[in-house]
């Protein structure tokens, strides 16, 4: 195959524009995080002070700050008490579908139909709590037998909150809300739609001429997926799976990059959430196994070319492999992106640790002097990681599909 890279001379002006855009983002990130977390920290301070009523208020809890950032949540927190409300769509067997904007929860100060918001996440009160809209106090967290529980004291009674909706906890409700992550994914999808439709239109308008500018950048990446992923892994079957591979690569890449931009409407830790990587991995799993031919299944259950005892020995291992492969996809992407977010948030948190939460300007300055270069460096690494992880997810998906659809060699 002929490499067409020679046609991809990105004009200098575009390259420099791109560079400044990326540099701008990287320079802005620590600053924005700094402001955001300072504000958020004050909020938690104030809350803990009023609820606990003693001198512990000045304590800075870095883990809390980090978890609040990387968690999915039912509102898009901007700074302080300001957050963008998002639609909550909740389903429970008893009450059916309940829909409301998350602003109705008033940052956890109100309950509605026994639903409450705890640290930005919708949870549910037990059945003996009155339904409808109820003003509530602060939700407290306790550790009982090594397990963390959230408790609400309301009119002299103690109510223990159910866990948040998840596949691991058996809850009385399911959360189908447009959460921060769903909102961000929709934004990523809209962005991709806009980009791809414009690129596609460009090809229609230009005919056979080579593109320039942003379209050229997109063509480099699309050609990269075609030449380095689709063709080597899938051979002449590549055209059938190309839409999946390209959508997969660009969706993951966009979500990864959006997580690196620190201000609204970006900054959500999208691909660092197990539910999302699970969704993506399941799609690969389904394609692999639905498109898998007889040869694929034969290689799993009755490996050709090895002695019979070996066939029997290999069958369960290969069968487990069917599930381990997408599982590894899921864990790899999740762990890489979450780790990146945690490291960057930890570095930013250093400023508050050093500055003793605003008490020591000198400490904060020292912390900033230490954290800002490190954060910049980490952001550059995360930029590369965002590309690499999107690429790895795509090339592994392609190789699994390629192996499943390959005809037997004679």
């Amino acid at each position, binding site marked *: 195959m002929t490499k067409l890279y020679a046609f991809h001379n990105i004009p200098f002006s575009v390259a420099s524009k791109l560079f400044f855009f990326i540099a701008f983002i990287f320079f802005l990130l620590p600053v924005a995080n700094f402001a955001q977390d300072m504000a958020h920290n004050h909020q938690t301070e104030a809350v803990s002070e009023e609820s606990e009523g003693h001198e512990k208020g000045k304590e800075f809890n870095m883990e809390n700050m980090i978890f609040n950032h990387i968690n999915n949540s039912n509102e898009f927190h901007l700074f302080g008490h300001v957050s963008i409300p998002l639609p909550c769509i909740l389903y429970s067997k008893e009450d059916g579908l309940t829909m409301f904007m998350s602003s109705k929860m008033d940052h956890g100060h109100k309950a509605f139909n026994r639903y409450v918001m705890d640290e*930005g996440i919708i949870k549910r009160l037990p059945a003996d709590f009155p339904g409808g809209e109820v003003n509530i106090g602060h939700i407290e967290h306790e550790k009982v037998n090594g397990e963390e529980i959230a408790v609400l004291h309301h009119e002299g009674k103690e109510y223990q909150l159910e866990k948040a909706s998840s*596949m691991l906890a058996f809850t009385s409700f399911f959360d189908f809300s447009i959460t921060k992550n769903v909102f961000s994914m929709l934004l990523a*999808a809209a962005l991709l739609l806009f980009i*791809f439709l414009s690129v596609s239109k460009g090809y229609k308008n230009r005919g056979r001429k080579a593109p320039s500018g942003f379209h050229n950048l997109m063509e480099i990446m699309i050609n990269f997926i075609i030449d380095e992923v689709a063709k080597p892994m899938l051979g002449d079957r590549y055209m059938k799976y190309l839409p999946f591979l390209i959508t997969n690569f660009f969706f993951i890449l966009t979500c990864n990059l959006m997580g690196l931009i620190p201000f609204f409407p970006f900054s959500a830790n999208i691909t660092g959430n197990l*539910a999302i990587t699970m969704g993506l991995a399941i799609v690969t799993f389904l394609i692999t196994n639905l498109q898998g031919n007889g040869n694929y299944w034969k290689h799993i259950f009755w490996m050709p070319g090895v002695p019979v005892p070996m066939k029997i020995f290999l069958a369960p291992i290969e069968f487990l492999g069917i599930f381990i492969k997408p599982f590894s996809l899921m864990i790899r992407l999740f762990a890489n992106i979450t780790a990146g977010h945690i490291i960057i948030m930890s570095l930013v948190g250093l400023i508050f640790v050093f500055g003793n939460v605003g008490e020591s300007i000198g400490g904060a300055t020292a912390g900033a002097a230490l954290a800002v270069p490190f954060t910049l460096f980490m952001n550059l690494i995360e930029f590369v990681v965002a590309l690499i992880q999107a690429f790895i997810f795509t090339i592994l998906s392609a190789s699994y599909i390629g192996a499943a659809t390959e005809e037997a060699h004679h």
Partner: protein
Amino acid sequence: MVLLAEFNVIKPDFGLFFWTVIIFVSLWFFLGKKAIGPIAKALKEREDSINDALAQADIAREEMKNLRSENEQLLSKAREERSALLKEAKDQASQIVAEAKNKAKEEAGRILANANLEIENQKKQAITEVKNQAGLLAVQVAETVLKKQLSNDQAQIDLAQTLANDIKLN
């Protein structure tokens, strides 16, 4: 102390999973139909056309090479032909000159011969004329002489006698 916020990224939520699959799959089908298909087709077309153009350029180059050698051949052939033509022309010219010379010589010879012949003829004619004239003159002379000798009857009988003698002898 404030306890940890729930670390929900490791607890996959069914709702989030559901939305991920819905968003991803619809994006996949929509982009595949509206954008990626046409883009991949356009890229393939361009690649094919570039390959075609390269192959055609190769063919054209080969053809050019052939043409050039052919041209050179033609040129050398033309040069040869020219020199041959020149030579031929020279030969012809010298031949023509030689022929002309020969012809001229021949003509001259012929003219000379004719002239000689004419001269001879004229000469003969003249001689014949002179002879005739001389004959005539002789006859006239004889006539005159005869007229003078035969002026008497004796002479005439003598003559007739002689003539008659001659006839008998014959």
